């Protein structure tokens, strides 16, 4: 197993390098902006995935990004707060809301939980729409200031004015988020989550406090969604109650379904794949919902393990081929 670990780490480093070098090869600022939003969606799909591993399906995930985005934007515009403190407040707020709402709703199972999260998502949208100050009411907030520059003595001041700056900032936070999600799931807690999803009464009968773990997954995921919401507002410089709503929540679910659920890599593949695909089909943008709907159904019917499963099969075939070539030559 040790060798597999090394392969994974090596592959991750290569992928990370590719992402770090993207702005060197792509100079078009619009495209950098698109890739930044794809990164934000990666974090949203991956955090949603964590909730799914405990067997709870939520249609309200985008609303926690809304909470994060609004708290950050509101604090900065209404109170002139610096962006890093606003970010902290945004993430903590998302976590607290998740804690309270999770405690109430996670007792509910199956389809009823889905409906409850759908309702909560709409409820959050309405709440933010009610406050002119500091959240701008139904129109939201525009012309959001960029993240506050970081001045470390002895180093040049780090500004966040260009799309490339925002891209790297987003990348850093997304990578941190993914590492957290990966470590959480790969450890014993991941097994607890899976046990709750596969047989929750059995899990309880061996002493697992299923509410505690479901809430843990939910709060961590929603805090990361809040973070993603903040990153989103840095790039779009705009937030309104409608921007991150039900259609977006559904989109993140499609990313997980298409990408695969077996590990955090699944939703990453799904978000990147669908993000790029969406840009490719831009000329026929009106058909996007239909096409994505078809992709969701096709994924569920024909390739349940998603893009991740397909890649794993390809990898296995390559290994088999390599072994056969080696044995034929010895």
């Amino acid at each position: 197993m040790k060798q597999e670990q090394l392969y994974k780490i090596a592959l991750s480093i290569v992928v990370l390098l590719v992402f770090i070098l993207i702005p060197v090869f792509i100079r078009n600022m619009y495209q950098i902006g698109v890739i930044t939003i794809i990164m934000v969606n990666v974090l949203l799909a991956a955090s949603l995935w964590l909730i799914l591993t405990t067997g709870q399906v939520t249609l309200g995930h985008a609303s926690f990004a809304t909470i994060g985005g609004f708290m950050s934007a509101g604090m900065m515009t209404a109170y002139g707060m610096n962006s890093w403190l606003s970010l902290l407040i945004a993430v903590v707020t998302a976590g607290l809301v998740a804690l309270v709402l999770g405690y109430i709703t996670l007792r509910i199972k199956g389809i009823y939980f889905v409906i409850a999260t759908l309702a909560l998502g709409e409820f959050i949208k309405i709440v933010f729409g009610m406050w002119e100050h500091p959240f701008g009411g139904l129109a939201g907030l525009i012309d959001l200031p960029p993240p506050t520059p970081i001045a470390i003595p002895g180093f040049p001041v780090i500004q966040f004015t260009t799309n490339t700056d925002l891209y790297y900032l987003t990348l850093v936070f997304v990578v941190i988020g993914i590492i957290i999600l990966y470590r959480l799931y790969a450890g014993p807690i991941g097994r607890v989550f899976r046990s709750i999803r596969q047989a929750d009464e059995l899990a309880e009968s061996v002493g697992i406090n299923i509410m505690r773990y479901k809430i843990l997954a939910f709060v961590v995921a929603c805090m990361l969604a809040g973070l993603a919401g903040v990153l989103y507002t840095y790039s779009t410089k705009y937030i309104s109650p409608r921007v991150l709503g039900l259609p977006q929540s559904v989109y993140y679910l499609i990313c997980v379904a298409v990408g695969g659920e077996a590990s955090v890599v699944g939703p990453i593949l799904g978000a990147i794949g669908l993000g790029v695909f969406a840009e490719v089909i831009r000329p026929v943008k009106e058909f996007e919902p239909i096409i994505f709907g078809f992709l969701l159904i096709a994924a569920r019917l024909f390739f349940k393990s998603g893009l991740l499963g397909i890649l794993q099969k390809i990898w296995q075939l390559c290994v088999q081929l390599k072994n056969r070539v080696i044995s034929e030559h010895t």
Partner: protein
Amino acid sequence: MPLLELQKLTKYFGGLRAVNELDLSIEKGQIVGLIGPNGAGKTTAFNIITGKFRPTSGKVIFKGKDITGLNLHTIAGLGLARSFQQTFLFSEMTVLDNILVGFHLKSKIGFWNALVSTSSTRHLQGQLVEKATEIIQFLGLEHVKYELARNLPHGYQRLLGIGIALATEPELLLMDEPSTGMNPEETEHLLGKIKEINKKGLTIFLVAHNVRLIMNVCERVIVLNFGSKIAEGTPEEICTNSEVINAYLGSGYASRC
């Protein structure tokens, strides 16, 4: 002090009386059987003891402590484990992982040490894998250790269910119809295993329809019918009890006891 005591345990589901003023006590080290026709209230009684249902009235006392109304995971933590009538397993996990989940309470999982794996957590994991392997070997599942639970034949799945309960290192094990779906050979094997774990000090409270199993393994038998206890005694006494014969056993068994 009895290990488990039920005091006038009663459960109504709406107008249906499932359990009626059930009194019983089980001493440490015993193997006690609970029999009766379908619908007699045996599984309901188990569900109340383990914390899945609250009784309408009455008490459950475990190790001298009133555990009535505590929830499932708390009671499991006190040393009371249960295997299920239906085959509940972690279907997408291997046999080994299934048992490891059973060791949850012993594994000191925390949020922070899940993020950062230290040498002490790895050491503890290793110990748990060893303990899990012991249980797997004890049940005779060594050769399917890495098989997914959903791929196992039915008899092995039932054994795995017992293994998961054993992993909690309980003092009292409630077994709800462990031999369902097992052929005579598998049942014989199970019988031996039950006696073995009892010899190691585990008290067992067993529900079964297999009368031969009950008579062979239990030192005391309690008979339930329509939620009420109609008889209690040694297997021989129960076999010859006319009320039990009428309600459940049938006269054919009486001659075979």
